[in-house]
């Protein structure tokens, strides 16, 4: 993921979770989190349980997310005193700033008569900065949040509104869509992602289903003038179709890597056998048990380390209602 992709990813996440973007440039976002995003990103369980129990108005945190450190710092240096990318400052931020200034003056006046007044100003002015890049903790957190909240969907394709006859009813077909991660593992590891779609009407199975969905507009609500084709197969049957398709694809692969791993495994086992057999044959009786248990444990380690295996797990899945009869 390059900086641009990270930037776009962040933007999509912020929009999807209804965060308020105060200002942005191609190198950063300054954002006030929505309550739902704050719960997930700021790690403040006590605060949120306080809000939940007392019904207090939640005060969410603001962040400066920098997606292009060099560019952002260069901007900040060029423009000392003022925040970078004033150019894209949106109206609410500007008003917030003037309000902040007024607040400041008021507070200064109060401070002269009463001493120091604790205010929100400090919190408003100090927005924590977070450099977001591929591999950073924040992005990992976003990945995990997306995974957590993007697991199961039930969606309808949005009809193309222009070319439609209002008295026509468009037939829709429900599809089971699933994205799968496959891990090929020995002492080393490789992964592949697959995406399958199975028509619940006909049992027809297609690959690269997600890529196909990506270009479509989807909505959680049933559009008007749409009728859904009845399911011809059960979910269970659809699932079996997917599993069979995946297994067929995987069986067609080369397993040279597994053969090599098995060879390493046997070599290592041979060395260990040679060593411990000798040790056991010459050991005193009372030591044998300890040696045997060490031997077994070492055999277990080698198996753990080298044994070739393949595992698959679902990334996410859902039911997609798409236009047409599939």
């Amino acid at each position, binding site marked *: 993921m390059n900086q641009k992709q990270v930037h776009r990813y962040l933007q999509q996440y912020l929009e999807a979770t209804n965060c308020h973007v105060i200002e942005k440039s191609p190198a950063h976002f300054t954002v006030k989190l929505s309550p739902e995003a704050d719960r997930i990103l700021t790690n403040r369980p006590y605060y949120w349980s306080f809000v939940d129990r007392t019904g207090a108005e939640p005060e969410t945190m603001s962040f400066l997310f920098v997606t292009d450190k060099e560019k952002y710092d260069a901007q900040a240096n060029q423009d000392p005193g003022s925040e970078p990318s004033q150019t894209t400052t949106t109206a609410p931020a500007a008003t917030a700033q003037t309000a902040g200034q007024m607040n400041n003056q008021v507070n200064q006046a109060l401070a002269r008569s009463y001493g120091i007044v604790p205010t929100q100003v400090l919190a408003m002015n100090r927005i924590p900065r977070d450099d977001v890049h591929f591999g950073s903790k924040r992005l990992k957190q976003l990945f995990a949040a997306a995974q957590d909240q993007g697991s199961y969907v039930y969606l309808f394709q949005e009809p193309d509104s222009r070319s439609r006859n209002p008295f026509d009813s468009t037939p829709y077909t429900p599809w089971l869509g699933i994205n799968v991660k496959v891990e090929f593992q020995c002492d080393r590891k490789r992964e592949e992602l697959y995406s399958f779609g199975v028509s619940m009407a006909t049992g027809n199975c297609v690959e690269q289903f997600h890529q196909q969905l990506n270009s479509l507009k989807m909505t959680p609500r049933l559009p008007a003038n749409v009728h859904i084709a009845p399911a011809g197969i059960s979910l269970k049957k659809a699932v079996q179709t997917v599993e069979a398709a995946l297994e067929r694809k995987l069986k067609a692969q080369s397993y040279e890597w597994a053969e090599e791993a098995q060879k390493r495994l046997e070599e290592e086992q041979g060395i260990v056998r040679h060593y411990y057999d000798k040790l056991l044959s010459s050991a005193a009786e009372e030591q044998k048990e300890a040696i045997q248990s060490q031997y077994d444990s070492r055999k277990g380690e080698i198996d753990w380390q080298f044994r070739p295996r393949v*595992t698959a*797990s679902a990334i996410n899945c859902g039911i997609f209602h798409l236009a047409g009869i599939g």
Partner: protein
Amino acid sequence: MADNMNSTPNPATGTASGSSSSASSGTKLHPLVEFQFDRSWQDELQARLSKNGPWDDWTLYKLAVEAQEAEAIGSFDEMQCLRTLPELEPMPHQLSTAGKVVHEMGGRAILADEVGLGKTIEAGLVLKEYMVRGLVRKALILVPASLVLQWVRELNQKFGIAAVAQKKAHMWHYDVVVASIDTAKRDPHRDLLLNSDFDLLIIDEAHKLKNKKTTNYQFVTQLRKKYCLLLTATPVQNNLDELYNLINLLKPGQLGGQSEFAANFVVDKRMPKNEEQLHEALSTVMIRNRRGDGGIHFTKRIVKNIPIALSPEEMALYNGVTGFVKEQYDRSGGDLTSMLSLVTLQREVCSSRDAVFLTLVNLFKKTAEDSPLRPKIWELVDTIKQITSNTKAEKALELIRQMNEKVILFTEYRATQEYLLQFFRSHDLVAVPYRGGMNRGKKDWMMDLFRGRAQVLIATEAGGEGINLQFCHHMINFDLPWNPMRVEQRIGRVHRLGQTEDVKIYNLCTMGTIEEYIVNLLHEKINLFELVIGELDHILERFEEKEAPLEKQIAKMMLEASGDSELKNRIDELGNTIGQLRNPKAKSPSSKQKSQAEIGAFLNRVSHEVEVRP
């Protein structure tokens, strides 16, 4: 949704953990390869369908897939971890070492680079690579107690690995734990650890495990681990059995049984035979890099001694203290151990009057009220009162102003540090302190200030973790420790990998005092300031094999010498002895040195030369 990414098969049963057999299908894709498909998602989807929700957001659904696509490990071979570490720039030999461990050695290796080539970085790269690939979740890192925090910081800062230092029992359950081996092997930790499965075990300073009879050795043998890294700069010190033991820890039986190893590879304890086969066997379990002869290792160190003539008042204090110290020593009848505070006094008098004053006051408090010492101490205090200015501090100020760049100034004494802070402040020079007693947060804060607007960092502590000052290339030794290792540590803060400028070292040296001799000893005789990193270790090790530690010897000479010229001669002599140790080949070698030379030559033959550039 069950995320199986980091699932670790249990070595005992050999099945994938987390998914019960009812929730997954087990078939064979190939005679050797079992296939598991986690089916938990089906039930969840069915449940949501029958309850009519709740359903997730379409954008987040797509983002989840995009995340998996970004993180997917496309190939067995390519190093994956670097793209997640944009700030890290490992050196080529570190990268190739990490790659070799992961791709060719199955993740079990002895990393035996020479000192200063970055074994920690190599181990960090291996750990990170395995974590990124989802092959390691749980890792245990056993290091000497003094290095625990340093490891935690490096892993966190350089590698973005959330490592913790083990402090409480429940912390063993964290994924990546750094602990001292002496803690780990003790109850109640011991049983807990022996009942865990570690995806990766890293042991730093592994040469401490060369003896297989020790409890540490046996403990490490019993730990269950998938991958294992042993880090040491000296895989063999005295005899080849040490190497055998180390390898047996990593992979029992790799070099056969003890007797086979002896028969196949050993002539006597130190001479290997069948070297080619031994090299071959070693190359599957050990990687050793050493500095190439031709490479530019580090930037240069430029050393300048700044002679300082004390003012008459300061000289009077110096002479007063020297006389006092010697008198006390003579009276005690040559008992060195009780003389510690006096030696300190002698060293402090070269630093600042403030430091002397503090020690004198403490000494005064300790002596009995009717002691004849008390008036003498007062006399010295009176002498201190005569001093109005600090020649050394003024010289330091002048130097710093001339440089007009970041400077780190080292002193041994708190009192001097306080004095200098005030002195510099009164001359509008921004300086910040740094000392061992500060807590982590404060240390970090001081570092930030120094990186920012402060021109000078005044440090009393050179050892310890966390001060990496590559952005600064001037250092001033306001006073010099008598222990050369401490001087080397000071220099090491600034002169290290990553330093791009020549490092300028200024030694402030008051003429006509013991400091003059010390500077002479360290600079001219030991040539301390120009030694290659790591070389001093070896020299001192050789020296202290036969003799008392250097600083102790200096103290003794100082107390015993009848006059300046005798002191000078004796320190010179000491310097010559050490100077000879730098070149053991020049002398007729003792048998011990000979054997070490043999082992050294052997190690050189199994190592790869690398060019190390800053």
